[in-house]
């Protein structure tokens, strides 16, 4: 599973794309837990979203390695 990282997420993870090999990650919620365990700084940023296939996802949405997944920190365009 490959995760695109932007903004502060890119700095926390220290790379543009995070590769995860973990069969227990089946939902957005699972991914959030994984990120908060591996990168405790994420716990401080409660409002980051996960996008699946370029659409904001719900915590209950299922995900697989075929999906395009991205971490979306609080946006600040404009």
């Amino acid at each position, binding site marked *: 599973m490959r995760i*695109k990282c932007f903004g*502060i997420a890119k700095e926390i993870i220290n790379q543009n794309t995070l590769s995860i090999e973990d069969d227990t990650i089946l939902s957005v919620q699972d991914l959030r837990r994984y990120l908060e365990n591996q990168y405790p700084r994420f716990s401080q940023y409660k409002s980051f979203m996960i996008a699946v296939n*370029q659409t904001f996802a719900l915590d209950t949405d299922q995900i697989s390695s075929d999906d395009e997944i*991205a971490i979306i*920190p609080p*946006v600040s*365009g*404009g």
Partner: protein
Amino acid sequence: MNQDFDIKIIDKALSIDNAYDFVLDSTCGGITLFVGTVRNHNKGETVTHLDFESYRPMAIKELTKIAASCQTQFETKKIAIYHREGLVSIKEKAVIIAVSTIHRKQAFLACEFIIDQLKLNVPIWKKEYLMDGSHWVNARP
């Protein structure tokens, strides 16, 4: 592609003329534009420049949804949305929104709706460079 929309994320200077020319329509009596420029101060600190990053394909998708919603809600005719990417200096344009409608009230409402939605929901991030460091805006813990 919806030919009533011109939505771009660009790493060069944004052109008001291009946005205006795109939305200009002989059936329309009013065009409203919003131009977001880079300020030299934010919350009392001196800003030297900005760096914009976007999740470009998703940002374009989200902006297209916002534009489509304006066609339904405000009966807009044409909409241009240009957002800057990369390094942007003070006084440069970070974003241009242009909207044409038959009646002007709707053009104001749509233009304001688009910039409000853009700032809330479109995956674009701004890194602010100050005299003594830099940070991603809205991303303080």
